[in-house]
């Protein structure tokens, strides 16, 4: 197993490459998820405020 992580002496390069790529993938998933939640909340707030102002 430690041989696997060692990557024939290229551990730093190989695992950094995989880490960067998976960080990129992760960001691509998180950004739209958070944006959607934020937007829905904002729309709800605005609607609530508009309702209050009408009263």
């Amino acid at each position: 197993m430690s041989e696997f992580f060692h990557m024939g002496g290229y551990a730093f390069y190989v695992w950094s490459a995989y880490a960067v790529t998976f960080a990129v993938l992760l960001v691509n998933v998180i950004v739209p998820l958070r944006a959607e939640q934020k937007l829905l909340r904002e729309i709800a707030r605005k609607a609530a405020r508009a309702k209050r102002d009408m009263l």
Partner: protein
Amino acid sequence: MWLWFHKLGSPKYFWTISGRLIPWLGGVTGVLMAVGLYLGLFVAPPDYQQGESYRIMFIHVPSAWNSMFIYLVMAVSAAIGLIWKMKVADSVAAASAPIGASFTLATLVTGSLWGKPMWGTWWVWDARLTSELILLFLYMGFMALQSTIEDRQKAARASAVLAIVGAVNVPIIYYSVIWWNTLHQPPTLSMAGTAAIVPSMLIPLLILAFAFKFFYVTVLLMRTRCEVLERERNSAWVQELAQEADTNLTPALSRSRAE
């Protein structure tokens, strides 16, 4: 009449359908990713010249293919938006840009991490590397135009022109290793179909390439959904949706305090 009906019904329809598709697409992406990584990291033998370092290729090449593929999708949909004034096409182009830019960045970084031990340098002004860097600048230019021009339609028009003109860079990236005989090696797979790679390495590469494509489609839908939501924010169904989401997301205590 039909057009009016279509316009009225379509964003909500898109929202529902994409909501149902995303989990499936994500699932396929996950399975392909797991299988490809397993075969690439555990099953494929070390390379006789590069040792274990070549395993970077399993993510570098799919990222590079995505960086070019997404650019073409972006340029084509921006062109469709420009010519036929299709707003969905503009949305697809706008949503693709940050995804494509991130894959271009991943390509450059992973390439650099492979180049250091193999070529002895992080970076050279080789034709392939330079044209890929230009691709990143094209994506960034597109996003800058989108965010700096206030008027949505004007922004879409200006950035579409940039995307279309910049598309000439994609064949340049692809053929750069053939036209200019500099440092970067020739393509792993050529259009002619002859692969300079053994099946035990080729199969994980192809599986991961498919996984990255599925990933792109999944996150593209997720981003386009946000876009639709933003544009439809005043419609009844979005208002209802927001109300529901807000009740689910906000803890009861802070809600009652706010009221």
